[in-house]
């Protein structure tokens, strides 16, 4: 039976690994592990909920409802942003001013929505 979980000092180095079924945690390549001590996961640094007003039609043109939230930090490298509305649809989109961390969320539907956003840093 394969060793699936390793915790502790292994050959002088700390190891905390869990392997996928069929892989030995001591020797599996990274893609054979569900977790390992050198992992660099995507970690959300900011998340929240915000109400976004309904979009409207004015003079035959769509006018997006929009709201701006402050993420509390600027960004030198673009973060990854996951954004969904309360119906779990991607009917909202956003732009981020990386200099001041202002995230503006747009709603093109004719009803107000609650948006949830996660901001992930890749490092």
């Amino acid at each position, binding site marked *: 039976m394969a060793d*699936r*979980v390793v*915790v502790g000092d292994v050959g002088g180095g700390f190891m*905390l690994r*869990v392997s996928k*079924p069929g892989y030995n945690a001591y020797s599996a390549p*990274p*893609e054979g592990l*569900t*977790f*390992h001590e050198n*992992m*660099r*996961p*995507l970690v959300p640094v900011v998340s929240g909920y915000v109400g976004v007003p309904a979009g409207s039609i004015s003079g035959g043109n769509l006018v997006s409802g929009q709201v701006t939230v402050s993420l509390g930090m600027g*960004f030198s*490298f*673009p*973060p*990854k*942003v*996951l*954004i969904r509305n309360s119906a779990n649809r*991607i009917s909202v*989109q*956003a*732009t*981020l*001013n*990386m*200099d001041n961390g202002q995230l503006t969320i747009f709603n093109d539907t004719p009803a107000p929505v609650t948006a949830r956003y996660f901001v992930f840093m*890749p*490092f």
Partner: protein
Amino acid sequence: MTNRLRIGHLFGQPGVYISQPGDDVNNPTQALALDTRYETMDIHHYGRRRYNKEVISSINTTFYTSFGAEQFPALGYEPMFMFTTIRLASGNWASYPLGIYNPGPGFTQNFEFEIRGNAIWTTFDMLGTSTPDYDFVYVIFRNRLV
């Protein structure tokens, strides 16, 4: 005191499990903070590169290409990736979720992103010839695509 950490057999599989504060890891009522039954997205490489803009005024289209120009340490298999773009016309703006959002001069007609070995091939084109410059931003994971 609530048990929050379990190393060993749980939920039918060996692993490491951590519950949220106040939640019993042996009988959780909320999503676990760490659940090694599932893969965690594991970052391998990330980067940022300027697109080369090519305006074709006769067909009112602007092309942006970066064929094979961006490379990363090879993994030996096709990895998962994420990408977005930054619109540079009016400052340091990033757009979500589609990667390209250009409410002013035009809209995106086509977008392709492909990994071949350890090189990234990208292209997209946009209607209009007064479109801004873009930076292309990507994250490549150790997780397999297939």
